[in-house]
């Protein structure tokens, strides 16, 4: 499989982006390397079973979707605390250039696949979050609107030793956007979890239904670090989302909470992966999704326990609720275990709203639609409970209610 080259892309395009942003040389080089990697890079792996490809990324027409020089976004960043840096890269180069250079691309190889390479070569927005040693900060908020044919975003979070931070990142389509037809949003997030640091990174995607979304978020933990993810997807025509943690430090932890709500012909391909590569590490993967109309979901969860990952605990649950007869749900929760000193489990279910629960509520004179909606809202509670940022939780609740109208 070789991916089509995008004709409108050239070194000049990339240089132009870098110059406009007044970027240091190392980043331009990284971008150019990513650009040339496009020639050989492959699209992300998609599950295939006999006669069935779970998500068709090859059908995406990147030539039409990618418009690198007209990217436009409106992004609001709230730090909530003076001690933490929450800024676009362009404002961070002067003071934090060395930190950026040190960590950029170390968690997530820009040449990981075709879409990451494309994203690194072309990104024009994103955020650098730097939490110095020992600093605790809550409620970092990054709210972005997409106002162009295509938008590439790159975020780097560096949490130094014994720091802690909760972050909400949201993306939606700008209201004034006059772009007709299909759009493409790409979002790469790297999280560096220093020793004993704690990061919760929440993400809310609610783009309009002409948009195709690719998102890859990855974190690496140092000793005793915790990286928790909350990945919620409501919008887009097609979403491919990967959330991954490498547990590289002894005693480190990660929780990956995912949620999606698909209606009409939305397609969600959500993936949660964790690699246990040190001793005494813990992971918990929880995904809950609802499908209505002819929506379709694809889920892959991977718990990979390495040879040296002694005393590992690893859990995974995935539950899909089907509200419509025409929805489709594919799921593949995988365990790859190389060390016996492991306690690992996973489970996945697909089903409808429980008939008995429905009957009970109806017997309390609640009409059937309201009863169903209450049960769906309740279905999301285990996920909502994990969200540390109040505003984020309220947003998710609101979106669920909105979808149930």
């Amino acid at each position, binding site marked *: 499989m070789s991916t089509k080259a995008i004709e409108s892309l050239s070194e000049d395009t990339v240089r132009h982006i870098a110059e406009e942003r007044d970027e240091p040389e190392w980043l331009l080089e990284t971008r150019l390397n990513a650009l040339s990697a496009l020639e050989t890079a492959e699209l992300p792996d998609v*599950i*295939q*079973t*006999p006669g*069935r490809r779970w998500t068709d990324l090859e059908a995406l027409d990147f030539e039409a979707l990618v418009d690198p020089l007209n990217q436009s976004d409106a992004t609001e960043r709230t730090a909530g605390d003076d001690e933490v840096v929450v800024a676009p890269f362009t404002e961070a180069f002067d003071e934090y250039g060395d930190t950026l250079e040190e960590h950029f691309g170390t968690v997530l190889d820009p040449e990981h696949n075709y879409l990451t390479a494309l994203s690194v070569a072309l990104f024009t927005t994103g955020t650098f979050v730097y939490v110095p040693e020992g600093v605790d900060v809550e409620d970092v908020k990054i709210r972005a609107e997409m106002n162009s044919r295509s938008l590439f975003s790159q975020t780097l979070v560096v949490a130094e030793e014994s720091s802690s931070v909760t972050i909400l990142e949201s993306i939606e389509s700008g209201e004034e956007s006059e772009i007709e037809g299909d759009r493409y949003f790409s979002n790469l997030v790297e999280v560096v979890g220093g020793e004993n640091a704690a990061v919760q990174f929440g993400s809310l995607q609610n783009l309009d239904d002409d948009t195709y979304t690719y998102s890859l978020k990855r974190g690496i933990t140092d000793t005793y670090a915790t990286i928790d993810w909350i990945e919620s997807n409501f919008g887009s025509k097609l979403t491919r989302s990967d959330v991954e943690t490498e547990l590289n430090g002894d005693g480190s932890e990660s929780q990956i909470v995912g949620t999606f709500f698909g209606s009409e012909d939305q397609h969600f391909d959500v993936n949660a992966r964790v690699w246990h590569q040190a001793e005494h590490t813990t992971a918990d993967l929880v995904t809950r999704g609802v499908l209505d109309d002819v929506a379709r979901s694809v889920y892959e969860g991977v718990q990979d326990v390495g*040879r*040296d990952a*002694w005393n590992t605990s690893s859990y995974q649950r995935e539950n*899909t609720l*089907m*509200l*419509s*007869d*025409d*929805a*489709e*749900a*594919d*799921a*593949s*929760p*995988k*365990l*790859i*275990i*190389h*060390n*016996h*000193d*492991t*306690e*690992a*489990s*996973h*489970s*996945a*279910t*697909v*089903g*409808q709203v429980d008939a008995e629960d429905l009957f009970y509520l109806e017997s309390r004179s609640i009409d059937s639609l309201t009863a169903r909606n209450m049960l769906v809202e309740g279905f999301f509670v285990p996920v909502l409970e994990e969200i540390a940022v109040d505003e984020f939780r309220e947003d998710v609740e609101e979106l669920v209610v909105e979808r149930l109208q």
Partner: protein
Amino acid sequence: MSSQDHLKETDTEARFEFKKEEKSAFKSEKGLTEETIRVISEDKDEPEWMLERRLRALEQFEAMPMPTDWPEAPDLSEVDIDQIVPYIRPDIDVRGGVDDWTDLPEEIKDTFDKLGIPEAEKNALSGVGAQYESEIVYQNMQERWEEKGVVFCDMDKAVQEHEELVKEYFMTKAVPPSDNKFAALHGAIWSGGSFVYVPEDTTVEMPIQAYFRMNSEGMGQFEHTLIIAEEGSEVHYIEGCSAPKYSAFNLHSGGVEVFVGEDAHVQYSTVQNWSKNTYNLNTKRAIAEKGGRMEWISGSMGSKATMLYPSTILKGRGASDNHITIAFAGEGQDIDTGAKVYHNAPETKSTIESKSISKDGGRTNYRGLVHIADGASDSSTAVECDALMFDNESTSDTMPYMEINESKVDVAHEATVGKIGDEDIFYLQSRGLDDDDAKQMIVSGFIEPITEELPIEYAVELNRLVELEMEGSLG
């Protein structure tokens, strides 16, 4: 009935005859050519249509790539069809069996010794192949089968004597050669195997058994089993497999097709103990009509690499499937096994229970697919996988795939992986058991849900095989 007649009634006779004929009749080259297939077909005096099917399958085999794109698939790079002797056995100096038995590698011989099979039976088993396995059951049941119209014969004989049935069902509906590369290979050079036909409303009370054994170095075994269970009938088919170990690899690529008629019930049990140079790449599939019930019970103990995913297509309303699998991978073994179920009708039900044990660098993988088609409402499936690991050289993978196109369903998958609990061992030790016995007892308990589904003799054999494997590791 003479023992020669018994031999003729079973697939194993055919292979035994090959041994005799080998020197005089055939000097087949290694590898697979159209010429080889024509020779095989001619030797079997097959009808023209079967030869055509073989040749078509050969074309498909050549056109298909090796299945290298599966995630974490076993390494099949050593499997070179041109190195396989597909039909003719090389040098057999066994005459009467005894030599053959002593020729066996210590590993297998030791296995049989420890299985507690008396010396006389041991000789019979190795010398006459599966005759021992067939004879006991066969003798007892022969009369009854015939009276009821039940057919149990070797597949080659079925091509001659039940041509219409074979022509209709043989690799046309359940396992077409185009299904996968090894199904195509099988379709081209299949030989031997069993044909079972159970007429309407007939219950075969005692299990039918077949024992498959490979004796020659570098050979490939490609037996085909076709079971047709008519409406309301019931049958339990058991196969056992083993082979002596050689330095060159052996290939076993069997094909199994089961047709479960309306309200019929078929149970297919396998205890596989191929030697650890054998690649075991089978395609097994059942189609269950309305109200039909299919059960697959598989114990995979042997082989170097196994890729086996017995499949059931639940075609008729209310059909059901039950998979029970146990895999045990020791040093150098890669047991990649699982199940496939297609729910293509309403009110269909499947349960899959998988247990695996890996130790000393062995790898087990549960790889399974459950597909619920649109319209298969009120269907349910429950998949449960449990894995036990002994060390950090071994690998235990679980890769289930669920495709749900229908909302009125109940789908559940669960899996756990763990080590033997220190507390459990401590408890047993406090009761006076030593460490090894304690571990063995825990493993026996772990697989009990499966052994209790097997007829007693197979359960005992399975347990003994597990004990043997455990002894090797713990001793």
